[in-house]
């Protein structure tokens, strides 16, 4: 009789242990699962795990105005639905990395990026923007004196609530629809502006009218948002010339060094086939001063060393041969200096009204900016 009782007691103890450890295991799984989720949402995970693929994006992100914003805050956003979707869409990306079959460079725009109204506008509020913005742009000539030139423009940033919105940020306050005809969204075939009564003012690309059908508009049209202009707000690939100008303006490179702008830009543009080669070209700048300006080298040797260090940093921001990325790879839609930008629609698309004279969307410079002296 005693043996079955002892056995039962033993089994009961085992069962209690298993149940307690099972319950504690569930609690630990919840904690561990949360840690895993947090880790996969971290910038280190996105930027450093797929080191070669993400290296250019991660490098320029760290220098961007959004470097304190985690990747997932724009690429995933808030809420469970987008979280699950992002994890699922990440599976083919992991496969592409493991099989070395990813695109070089990565193509843009990101197709499944969440609308900017749900990401950018969590921090920025276009309806609170108002007035103009003074932009001063300092550049240096590639001459002996690195001659400085300051170009100051006043940008009509504008903004405001839907009905009162004006200037550039009117595009966000109003409901502006557009139909891109290419994957890069550079060729716009149609624009429709909704008014408060539900009417639609339509503008068409005159040379693409055969490609634009009401069905296609209905199916493929997109509501304009922040990233249609600010498409490189974070992964900003600036040219060596721009970066050298900025470093000179910030005093990181001594502008009293003769020909330093020319030397710096020549070392990095055109792009070098490797970072090592770019750095060795930059090191050779010391030789340039030794051979041509020995007195400058003697008097300003420390400035030359600082300039060389800063130029090496610029080389790291502009040399990405593994991913075939340069400052010309991705078109920046802001303005119109690096791509068609505003002129994808302005000056190109025309109103189509029966019997009326065709009128293009205004492309007057003063719509967006004017010179400070005016």
């Amino acid at each position, binding site marked *: 009789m005693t043996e079955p009782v002892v056995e039962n007691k*033993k089994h009961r103890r*085992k069962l209690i242990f298993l149940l307690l450890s099972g319950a504690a295991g569930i609690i630990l799984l919840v904690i561990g699962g949360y840690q*895993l989720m947090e880790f996969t949402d971290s910038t280190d995970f996105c930027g450093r795990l797929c080191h070669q693929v993400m290296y250019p994006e991660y490098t320029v992100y760290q220098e961007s105005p959004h470097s304190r914003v985690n990747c997932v805050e724009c690429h995933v956003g808030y809420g469970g639905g987008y979280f699950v979707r992002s994890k699922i869409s990440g599976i083919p990306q992991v496969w592409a990395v493991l099989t070395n079959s990813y695109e070089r460079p990565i193509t843009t725009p990101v197709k499944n990026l969440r609308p900017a109204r749900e990401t950018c506008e969590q921090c920025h509020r276009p309806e609170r923007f108002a007035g103009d913005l003074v932009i001063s742009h300092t550049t240096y000539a590639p001459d002996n004196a690195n001659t400085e030139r300051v170009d100051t423009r006043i940008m009509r940033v504008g903004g405001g609530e839907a009905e009162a919105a004006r200037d550039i940020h009117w595009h966000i306050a109003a409901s502006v629809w557009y139909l891109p005809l290419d994957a890069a969204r550079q060729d716009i075939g149609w624009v429709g502006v909704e008014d408060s009564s539900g009417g639609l003012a339509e503008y068409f690309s005159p040379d693409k009218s055969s490609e634009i059908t009401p069905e296609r508009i209905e199916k493929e049209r997109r509501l304009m948002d922040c990233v249609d202009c600010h498409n490189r707000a974070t992964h900003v690939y600036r040219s060596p010339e721009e970066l050298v100008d900025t470093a000179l303006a910030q005093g990181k490179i001594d502008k009293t060094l003769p020909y330093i702008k020319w030397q710096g830009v020549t070392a990095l543009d055109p792009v070098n086939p490797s970072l090592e080669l770019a750095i060795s070209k930059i090191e050779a700048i010391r030789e340039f001063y030794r051979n041509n300006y020995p007195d400058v080298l003697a008097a300003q040797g420390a400035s030359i060393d600082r300039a060389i260090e800063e130029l090496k940093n610029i080389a790291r921001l502009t040399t990405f041969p593994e991913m075939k990325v340069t400052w010309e790879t991705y078109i920046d839609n802001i303005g119109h200096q690096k791509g068609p930008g505003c002129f994808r629609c302005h000056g190109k698309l025309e109103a189509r009204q029966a019997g009326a004279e065709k009128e293009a969307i205004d492309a007057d410079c003063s719509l967006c900016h004017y010179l400070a002296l005016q």
Partner: protein
Amino acid sequence: MKLFREIFDDWLTRAAGIVFVLIFALVIFNIYSDLPERYPFFGVFNFGMVPVLFIVGGIIFFLAILRS
């Protein structure tokens, strides 16, 4: 000690105990260490091991329940 010897007298319960201790150690390690963040590959392994161990533990748990 006798109690422990009694509970862990078969390999299934012993395995369940080891899995539980491993999950616990991993979770505590991940809370206090910054190594997984500094070395993302190590992080993937470390954070990913928790659900894997839980599944292994779950299988052992059911086998142990069925046997006892």
